[in-house]
């Protein structure tokens, strides 16, 4: 194993970690705001990827342009999903029942994708699919770089929104203590709905990024939801910075472990990290006040 291979794998790990970070941020947001375990997050991700592929396939438009439509659409769908379905679950059992509910939604989306687009694997074919630029001896694929940039920008936007805006303050207050937030006059129901919409919007961005450089098929979301769930537990449920850091660490870990272990076994890094976290620090390694409530 050479140094350049290590460096190349590190670069690939960082690029992969960026996408994980964006998606895990959305997933942890649902949990933070609503204590909802959103199994369907990755299904929405794949749905967005399919829409991006479809737009490209049908009209020859760059898949990234699909974001103009999918991001607002997913945001609205998220608000509607929360207000119409999640809000109707009994607060005492919302975490458990949300698993069932969102599992059903995931199956519904998967089945619908299979019905409309068939189970055939799809891949967006772009003129710059194979292009790459050299950075300190490592080859960085342009599509991966775009996906990473998109993820980083969205994360930054999410971060600024949460820390700098009044809505962000209200959202964070809702995450920290819903009752107290209501006492000071925050409409937590509305905020929770918007929070859910934001989470789904990250799936829309992630989907477009995914479609640039990955094969998609209807059941692909099962390959994503496991690692993403592990990431948000390791990072501390409800903590967006925690999710981002854990995503980066585990993404790089997976990429580097593929060298000695191979593709099949490197996937286990997420679950080993999950077991270790639950044994050593069940509330997660970063942030994670919330996990203690279980």
């Amino acid at each position, binding site marked *: 194993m050479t140094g350049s291979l290590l460096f190349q*794998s590190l670069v690939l790990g960082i690029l*992969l970690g960026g996408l994980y970070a964006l998606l895990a941020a959305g997933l942890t947001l649902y949990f933070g705001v609503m204590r909802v375990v959103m199994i369907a997050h990755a299904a929405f991700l794949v749905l967005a990827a399919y829409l991006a592929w479809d737009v490209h396939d049908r009209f020859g438009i760059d898949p990234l342009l699909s974001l103009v439509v999918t991001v607002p659409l997913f945001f609205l769908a998220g608000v509607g999903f929360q207000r119409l379905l999640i809000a109707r679950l009994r607060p005492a059992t919302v975490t458990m029942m949300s698993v069932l509910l969102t599992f059903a939604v995931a199956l519904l989306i998967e089945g619908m994708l*299979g019905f409309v687009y068939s189970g*055939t694997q799809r891949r967006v074919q772009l003129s710059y*699919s194979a292009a*790459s630029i050299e950075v300190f001896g490592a*080859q960085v694929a342009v599509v991966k770089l775009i996906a990473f940039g998109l993820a980083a920008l969205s994360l930054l936007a999410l971060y600024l929104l949460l820390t700098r805006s009044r809505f962000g303050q209200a959202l964070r207050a809702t995450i920290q203590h819903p009752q107290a937030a209501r006492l000071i006059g925050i409409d937590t129901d509305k905020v929770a709905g918007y929070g859910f919409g934001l989470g789904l919007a990250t799936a829309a961005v992630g989907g477009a990024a995914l479609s640039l450089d*990955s094969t998609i098929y209807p059941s692909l979301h099962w390959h994503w939801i496991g690692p993403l769930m592990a990431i948000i537990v390791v990072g501390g449920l409800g903590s967006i910075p925690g999710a981002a850091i854990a995503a980066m660490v585990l993404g790089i870990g997976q990429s580097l472990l593929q060298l000695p272990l191979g*593709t099949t076994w490197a996937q286990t890094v997420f679950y080993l990290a999950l077991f270790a976290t639950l044994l050593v620090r069940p509330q997660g390694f970063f942030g994670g006040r919330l996990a203690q409530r279980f």
Partner: protein
Amino acid sequence: MPPLPARGLDRTLRKRLRKALTPVACVSPRRGGDPPDDARTALRLGCLAGVSALVLTACSGGAAGGGDPSEPITIGISLPLTGDFSEPGKGVQRGYEAWAAAVNSSGGLLGRQVELRILDDQSNADRVVADYESLIAQDQVDLVFGPFSTRLVVPSARVASEYGMLFVEPAGAAAEVFEQGFDNLFYAAPAIANDHYDHLAEAIIAMPEGQRPTTAAYAAMDDPFAQGTAYGLKEKLEAAGIRTVVDEVYPPNTTDFSSIAAQIADSRADIIVGGTQYQDAVNLIVALQQLAYQPKLAAFSTAPTNPEFSAAIGSRTDGIVSPTGYTPERPTRPTSSSCSATPPTTAPRPPRTRRTPTPRARSSRPPCRPSGVPSRVSASSG
């Protein structure tokens, strides 16, 4: 040979069938006039299906039967029309349909029209079992033909064997298909997976010392056929002293090939061998291109034989080799004088801009082999 009931066919009919089937012409898709892709694949697979039928007639010995000559012979087939194997699966479907059309236009089998009943098993081994059970038990088809690829052939052959049906399959090439003890299974292509690259191995080994590649990288899907092709070649090349520098296996649904590609690129292997089906080959090739890795030769199983391949890879299919086959009875090979002195795979060729799927048409040309010697490579097997 134990008697195998081919429902609906009695003995005399079967004799006539044997005669009737001989004219199914098998034309090599690789020569003369370059028919369009679809037609080419259809022809090639049609040949396979034709061969299947030949084997079938040769083997169905006297058993009880019957059948109304005015009714069509229904043939039940389950194919992976969606899912992992959808591209090669659709190719086999075109082949079966081409065969049925050819047979029906020349009077049918035993004077009866052939009717195909094709189900989609979604590349799923559970589904394929259910499909063949319903074809045999509910639809009462007269014959069953096989699906695509070992992973689906083994479970479906078991169903056919349980029902005592003859099972002719065009594309289950891994050695394990033949190690299950099936006495009803007939493989309609010329070689098992491990022998698919025999001619390529011979060609590489026959190269002069200075030109011969010294290192090779292997990446194979965790799939009996895909691994069979890659490891068959690996064994031969290793025995000839060509060093293995990367040997990776990945799960069937892998979508991210960047890490495997990084290892291959870093090894600077002279040649890359992919034990692939379809999408995995496309993904691996794109990932290798992203790393600006240029091997002297790239050999991938199955994927390059699909018409979709060149659209997915773009114009860069040159130098990609894939094993394909043809019927030995047909003198499709040029005589030895027209073989190139140096196999086409020795040196990297300058990139060309043609967008046609050249790989199997040109690069897979086995080097100098006397005409008339049966090829041990086979088409689109799995």
